[in-house]
């Protein structure tokens, strides 16, 4: 794939695809050395996701009568990113609906849930039983189930959810890692999203991504940290919080 170099600087090398441990180390450094709060970075991450989605799937492109989007949120931070994304999608004129079956009882997630509810974003009591129901009701599904910390077996209800999502025909936009994929090796028979929004830097799994749209988001990595981990991130255009890679 050709990288979308905006011409701001000489690319220093191929963009780095980080391993799971590196991604975790960068995160840790942002929280401990730089004293960023999870709230701050989650807000910027979720905003990037909504912005990337708006660029690739503008409301006018939906064939459903309203630009209806289903946001499926998992039990951890990737789910939190999804909640933030849903809220910004609402501000951008979409009609998001959230499915959030496993909610951590922490103020951060409770707050994000309240913000969505107070903005009249519905929370489904159960997941659509059939892939065809999803295809009829929504023009896009946001996969905010598992992120870069995912390891091991998929626990219910997410196994069934992913099985259903593997059968839908409307596009899926995955946040950071297509859920269910190994963070480094991918998953050939797993979810095949149309869009991937890599946060901070692409992970190794992104090398197995074959969808149409790959965006970079999470424009908060300080230059010194980019240098330290040799991320070779291309320049974001102007003040945009997302960069289209393919």
């Amino acid at each position, binding site marked *: 794939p050709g990288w979308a170099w905006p011409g701001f600087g000489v690319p220093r090398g191929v963009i780095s695809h980080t391993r799971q441990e590196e991604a975790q180390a960068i995160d840790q450094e942002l929280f401990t050395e730089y*004293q960023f709060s999870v709230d701050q970075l989650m807000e910027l991450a979720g905003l990037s996701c909504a912005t990337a989605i708006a*660029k690739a799937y503008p409301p006018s492109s939906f064939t459903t009568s309203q630009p209806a989007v289903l946001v499926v949120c998992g039990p951890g931070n990737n789910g939190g990113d999804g909640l933030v994304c849903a809220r910004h999608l609402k501000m951008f004129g979409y009609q998001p609906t959230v499915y959030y079956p496993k909610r951590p009882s922490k103020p951060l997630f409770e707050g994000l849930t309240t913000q969505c509810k107070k903005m009249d974003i519905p929370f489904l009591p159960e997941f659509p039983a059939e892939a065809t129901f999803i295809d009829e009701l929504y023009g896009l599904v946001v996969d905010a189930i598992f992120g870069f910390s995912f390891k091991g077996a998929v626990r219910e209800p997410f196994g069934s959810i992913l099985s259903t999502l593997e059968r839908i025909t409307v596009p899926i936009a995955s946040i950071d890692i297509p859920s269910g994929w190994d963070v480094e090796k991918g998953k050939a028979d797993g979810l095949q999203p149309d869009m991937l929004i890599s946060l901070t830097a692409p992970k190794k799994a992104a090398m197995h991504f074959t969808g149409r749209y790959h965006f970079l988001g999470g424009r908060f990595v*300080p*230059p010194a940290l980019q240098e330290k981990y040799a991320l070779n991130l291309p320049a974001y255009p*102007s003040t945009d919080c997302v960069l289209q890679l393919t």
Partner: protein
Amino acid sequence: TPVSPQAFPLPSLPRKQPTVLVVCGPAQNGAIGLVCARHLRSFDYEPTIFYPKRSPDPLYRDFTTQCEKMDIPFLSYLPTEVQLINDAYNAVVDAVLGAEAEVTEGTEPCEAILATLKHIRIPIVSLDVPSGWSSESGAAGGISPAVLVSLAAPKECARRFLGRQHFVAGRFLPYDVQRKFELNPPEYPGTECVVAL
């Protein structure tokens, strides 16, 4: 808030280096200035911060750490010789006092800072309200910013703003809050978080 790049795009700056001075007061307005400085840095500007009276609030202290770790310099004093400021920077971000500040406070170091800023020639970008203006009555011998960035919605004193550009930023007000307070905010274009009025 990514306003400075819209008002002062990088290629248009008069100085060779894209330097910006961000003056931060002791409360929330100052903290917003710290966040602004950090984003300016990631947009390839060269911000310098003057933050003489630091808030003890843990969140604001973290904002300070984030700026320091991003190699944004903190001045130890603000030159009273305005020509030094005019020569060193392209613009000044005024994040000294917000809408909640009492004009009668008159506490240092804000008074001295504002006295200096009144005389600079380079453009001032004020965050939310021009510092030192009373929320209701406005200018009367205070600073004259070229650009005003109203946060969430314009405040009363914005009616008296005479500078060249007025932006609204902070695209987070839920629709029911907008309706409840009859804010009638302008439409933000696309996915922008800033809109020019």
